[in-house]
């Protein structure tokens, strides 16, 4: 299936690019992301908990980035599998600076969703993934704005084996997340993916 969309982030492109490539940020902003580990150059392993309609569970996945054009575009390849299903996706992401304070991030994902989530949740996937993506970008905006997060900048030493885990989330955000799931939520991975594709800084 094909999922496309774009989001406006109210920061300059450099800041957005940096934030989206910082695993320490991503692990906190990707809905349902519990763990993010650098496994090699441009590759990550991650654990994400998500649900689409009644199909919920935890997915283990990998993410690799290629064709990085700083501040312009990248390609992310994602694979994930868990009890509820599998995802295999190629996501093309492009950044465009609207003005000094606004960046548009567009994504074009070609995803194969398999297993139970593919058969039972398919009709909700597109809307759920868009919703999750929206939630993710809102979180990123918050992170760049420094709303109670760790420094966004310097995770340059994203060394192999370094593990990032999500801090306990405040009840409200947890609630939002659960609500998101309940609606049909989790894109399992797209959001994830969306997020994780940014998980490497260059």
């Amino acid at each position, binding site marked *: *299936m094909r999922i496309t969309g774009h989001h406006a982030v109210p920061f300059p492109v450099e800041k957005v690019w940096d934030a989206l490539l910082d695993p320490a940020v991503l692990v906190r902003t990707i809905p349902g992301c519990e763990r993010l580990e650098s496994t090699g150059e441009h590759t990550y392993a991650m654990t994400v908990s998500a649900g689409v309609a009644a199909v919920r*569970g935890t997915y283990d996945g990998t993410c690799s980035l290629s064709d990085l054009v700083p501040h312009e575009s990248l390609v992310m390849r994602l694979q994930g*599998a*868990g*009890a509820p*299903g*599998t995802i*295999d996706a190629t996501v093309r992401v492009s950044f465009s600076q609207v003005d000094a304070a606004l960046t548009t991030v567009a994504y074009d994902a070609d995803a*194969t*969703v*398999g*297993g*139970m989530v*593919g*058969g*039972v949740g*398919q*009709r909700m996937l597109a809307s759920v993934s868009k919703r999750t993506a929206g939630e993710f970008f809102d979180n990123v905006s918050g992170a760049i704005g420094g709303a109670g997060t760790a420094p966004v900048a310097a995770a340059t030493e994203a060394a192999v084996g370094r593990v990032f885990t999500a801090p306990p989330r405040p009840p409200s955000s947890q609630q939002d997340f659960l609500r998101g799931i309940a609606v049909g939520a989790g894109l399992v991975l797209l959001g994830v993916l969306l997020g994780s594709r940014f998980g490497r800084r260059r």
Partner: protein
Amino acid sequence: MTTKLFGQKIQRVEDQRFLRGDGRYVDDIGVGQDVLHAAVLRSPHAHARIVDIDVSGVLDLEGVHLVWTHDDLTGPMADPLPLLIPHPALTHGRTQFALARDEVNHVGEAIAFVVADDRYVAEDAVASIRVEYDLLPPVVGIDAAREASRLVHDDVPGNLAARLEQENGDARAAIAASPHTLSLDLTVERSASMPLEGRGTVARWDPDVGRMTVWTSTQTSTGVRAAVAAKLGLDLGQVDVVTPDVGGGFGVKINHPWPEELLVPLAARTVGRIVKFTEDRREHFISSAHERGQVHHVEVGYDDDGRVLGLDVTFWHDNGAYIPYGLIVPIITSTQLLGPYKPGAYRVVFESLYTNTVMVTPYRGAGRPQGCYVMERTLDAIADALGQDRTDVRAANFIQPDEFPFDQGLIFQDGRELEYDSGDYPASLAKLKDLIGWDEFPRFREEMAAEGRRVGIGLACYVEGTGVGPYEGAHVHVETSGKVKVATGLTTQGQGHATVFAQIAADVLGCRFEDVEVVTGDTRRMPYAVGTFASRAAVMSGSAVHLAATRAREKALRIAADALEASPDDLEIVEGVVSVRGTDTSIDLGTVAVLSNPLRYAFDEASKAATQFSVGDPGKPPVAEDDEPGLEGRDFYSPERSTFASGMHAVIVETDPDTAEITILKYAVVHDCGPLINPMIVEGQIQGGVAQGVAGALLERMAYDESGQLLNASFMDFLMPYVTEVPARIDIDHLETPSPLNPLGIKGAGEAGVIPSAAVFASAISDAEGFPITAMPISPSDLFDLRERRKETR
């Protein structure tokens, strides 16, 4: 024979149980006992090599008893599952393994098998198995299969399982010489049987006596029994297969053995406990079987009267990833396409193609709906081209009543000649036109048009080969109580066998209907049987029950004649009492049963009459050389060939000019299955068939994406009809043209209702819209899009 019960609307004896919740299905077996539960890991990918399966740690989970992959299977269990129906044209038959060995070929293919204390633990265990796949490009849909740039099986070039051609006359020459010709392309999408009870198997191994009992939701107990014995290395005599109540089969459960039908007994023997597998709905969508998906190309030549001079049909059959049931479905399409017609010459070619989707096995109708649709669409196109009434074109092509038996010059699905035994198609058409109001329709259309409403009328005719061989048997046992036990080996999935077989037995024996108890699908009671498919149960087992009951009756009369010192010719049996006609000298059937079994030991008052100092001629052995003890009859019915039922449906539909909603205004059926054993049950079969046909024509389809994921694998997205989608009333009329091939003259009725649905709705919607419908099923959205496209091309 008396025909007291035959032909009567006897209420189904099984309904009391079903309506009170006393039905007993496979999942009810073992409830309250110490049963273990199985779950299956299934492929999430349509096409992949299995690089590694990691089951480490699974057995550490509390409550898990067993986890198997293909590596754990040995001997025949490690081989591919059987190819049930080989055919010379099936040059590249492939079947799955009980658990995938190194490759998966459709989403849902079984990979690993877990047995645990309960289903929850079993599913958790399945979830903890890690499989590493090397993804392969999938082949989805007939176009991709034909293009063959990707292969489902590396060793099957062109994805071609089989190519079969049959010809009667020289069709191409006949078309070339015809005054008119037409070409059509016609498609039918996939659907599935979708019984409300999915597959299920329970097994118990008794190590003390070395015996396996398997309860399974199948359409063939004897088939499963043979497969379990062969795969588990047991003697046939060590395996009993019992089919309890079955919550719908519709074809899918004739395929066997399913992986779980072997793995469950094997696990029961391995762990020494009762093991149960119950398929869930999603599993049924992705790991059972589908049908119907075919693409057809028609070339036809005809004369000024619409008479078909030459018909040349090529079609492509999507058989899915595996082909255990052989070529039955496309063979049926290719032969039954002819319906009640006699084209001057006919040629048919089909290719059966592999795709990375769920495999195809027969679904009620079994290729006939597609064949009927192709033929009827063709005749509609001819009528349209000639500007003739569609019923006139049918009439011009009918086989006439005096032409039976009529040999179509082809080989049918049972390997026998496609020779129709009887029928009266012109009479059926006359009845149908009356029933639907064909001649009055133009006026109705005008009235509707005046109100801004759009209506159309359609009809479709079919012939259905029913009662295919090789045989069925029956055993009739009159007990000393006078109760009669009837056993036949084929299974029951709601057809009312307990009622109709009791009608037949009671008529023959002269016993009371209430005293007859029918058992089906239990290999302990009748170990020789074939199965319930192809509308064959009434014809095959009904005839066998008739023959077996006749033997029991003959024996009863012989013994009673002896006891009453009368001639057997002077006896009659009424209400379970044998009496000398015109006298009050009589003996109960139960007493005859007592006398039939010479005893040494009495066990009650009645049996004293049969002990050694009471009966017998001292000069003869107590059981004569050519006789056997007991009042029983056993016989088998094996016909030379199938018997051919027929019918015609007509429908009036309304299509909304704005929303393209399709509404059924009137539905009429004329049906000829020979003499009706029980008209109420036949009408029920027709009603159910029409409901399923409406579903197949207007609602149901399997939505695969290009990666081979089935997107609508639940009842949220796969549309089953509610009662609101099924015609509230179906007008039914019967014709009874007896078959000369069996003692009761009967023909099958089980599939009839569903066969002409795609054809009749396509005809009516085309009539309403003024352009031909060439792809079925059709939803309001499809119709809306067709209208839009036609606007654009104008």
